[in-house]
């Protein structure tokens, strides 16, 4: 095997790990970064997106549209959850975790009761291509592209739109934003819905690559947590570099010793990072700039 194919293989695995970390973490990171709330039902929003997407595909809707529908349904559920539960708990961040964990239990077990222990999936689209001795899935490259696209879209949303300006004002000084006429409750609702929608998007995008079971959310949640903890409170200065860093760790460990070693590597990396940078990468970068 020559250097070129080896380099491509390493790059491909990095891209795959990066896409997985970014897509599974961005919903969690948006909600945490904007609202200081850790959404433990994050995995269930991912599951929701995946189930809706696959159902839509079974109903004859093409996959790209189905993914969008999955994300929108998750966002709607997210908005509902925010209005019913999260809204009442903003001054008690620890209780929010506990309450969302309750929601997570309800979501997993409720899905099991309503839809059974598994659901027929859809095949991975686009087939594969050959580089050197190995074949690679095209869809994994699409996922990497989507991860980059999601980061770019979030950047545009928070920097170039009216909603973005209001949202950033609300994070910085909520009562001042409110005094200037921003409906902060609405901003929080929309942000939570956005985070839930991004989780649903991740679920929809990964649905063709995995088995649909009610507990599928837990496959994503640990990676999402780790990325958010390492990244800190800022989506762009935190989540993206954290995902890049962790993707290197994960891809290296996975190609050496397998999937589980990748996860253990992530966990050890996060424990070391928080010992050195308790506020995550974004905390470190922002302090440097300030």
């Amino acid at each position, binding site marked *: 095997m020559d250097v070129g194919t080896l380099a491509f293989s390493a790059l491909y695995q990095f891209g795959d790990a990066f896409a997985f970390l970014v897509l599974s973490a961005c919903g969690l990171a948006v909600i945490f970064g904007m609202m200081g709330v850790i959404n433990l039902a994050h995995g269930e929003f991912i599951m929701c997106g995946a189930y809706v997407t696959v159902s839509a595909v079974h109903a004859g809707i093409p996959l790209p549209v189905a993914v969008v529908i999955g994300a929108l349904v998750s966002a709607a559920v997210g908005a509902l959850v925010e209005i019913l539960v999260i809204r009442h708990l903003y001054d008690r961040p620890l209780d929010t975790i506990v309450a969302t964990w309750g929601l997570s239990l309800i979501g997993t077990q409720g899905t099991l009761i309503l839809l059974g222990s598994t659901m027929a999936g859809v095949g991975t689209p686009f087939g594969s291509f050959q580089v050197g001795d190995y074949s690679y899935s095209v869809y994994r490259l699409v996922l990497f592209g989507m991860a980059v696209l999601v980061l770019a879209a979030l950047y545009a949303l928070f920097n170039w739109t009216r909603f973005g300006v209001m949202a950033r004002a609300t994070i910085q000084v909520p009562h001042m934003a409110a005094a200037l006429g921003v409906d902060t409750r609405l901003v929080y609702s929309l942000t939570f819905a956005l985070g839930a929608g991004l989780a649903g998007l991740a679920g929809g995008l990964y649905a063709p690559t995995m088995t649909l079971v009610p507990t599928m959310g837990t496959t994503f949640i640990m990676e999402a947590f780790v990325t958010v903890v390492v990244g800190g409170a800022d989506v762009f200065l935190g989540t993206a570099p954290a995902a890049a860093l962790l993707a290197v760790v994960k891809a290296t460990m996975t190609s050496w010793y397998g999937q589980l070693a990748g996860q253990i590597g992530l*966990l050890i990396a996060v424990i070391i990072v928080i010992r050195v940078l308790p506020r995550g990468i974004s905390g470190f970068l922002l302090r440097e700039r300030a």
Partner: protein
Amino acid sequence: MNALSRFFRRLEGPQTLGRGPAFWVGFLVVLAGACAYPLFSDGYTVGNTVYFFTWIFMALGLCLIWGYGGSLSFGQTAFFGIAGYSYGILTINFGAAYGFTLVALVFAVAIAALFAALLGYFLFFGRISGVFLGIVTLSVTLVLERFMAQTAGPEWRIGAARLNGFNGMSNMPPLTLPWPGGDIVLFPDVQLYYVVLGLLVVVYLGLRILVNSSFGNILVAIRENPERAEMLGYDIRKYQLGTFVIGAALAGLSGVLYTSWGQYITPSSMGMTAAALPIVWVAVGGRSDLTTTLIGTVTVLAVFQALTIHGSQYALVVMGAMLVVTVLLAPSGLIFALARLVARPFAKRQPGDA
């Protein structure tokens, strides 16, 4: 008599609900009832009741870490699992003769505590607190579950003990008390009931003494305001770490008792659902007090068991709903709120009460 009253004074203090003769008479009545319970029941039912009791240690440990210390640990089941597996590995390798199971119990709890000390060092000395502490401890639990779940192959063995992947370990010997004229094997029956009940009383009273000591006062001070406690000269990291280790050891004790009770342990005892249950027990009961946690845990477990026995799939949904409702409507816990309500007419105003 003087020594006895001094002992009782150590059990009472500002950090626990329930003081004075009335409470302790009630305590003795409940204890007497618990002691007499096997007389009115058969061995099988008593053995099932012990199953409830094995969980309470983990709940009390979480109450100490979360309710008193203010650190949210979602990793209690990790310590539970580590101790359970350690007990299995030790006893399968070395057998149960000469009371070795008790040595294995101590070692298993110590291993869990050691693991907690290592993890806690990185967390607390890295000044991780609040939500991040919960996420990291939960991640540790989930990774541990996945690690144990993939140990199905024959290469995963420690001595004679196969780890057995997702099916879990089984057939380890139950706890055995060395006794003149034949060891007492503690199968889930009346003997085990009394041993666990005794342990429970010791742990409950011990924790009461601990939280009402100066250690407990400092712990609550840290919960209320970490910066203030630090300004007053306490190294809060050491106190938090100490609490974390004690709580982990109690979770480990639960793990050992559970493993010895059913003679099996599986990776799913560390999964997402398993990790949520201690949070439900402690939150619903009232995390800021040992007694309400104890009552709450027993109540929630009884409800859960009743639902499960009647074949309802809704048991976990009910648990989740209970958690959400408690957090929204009675943040300090249902039993805690109830206790306050009952106690109000009887309470004499004490210096320091708000």
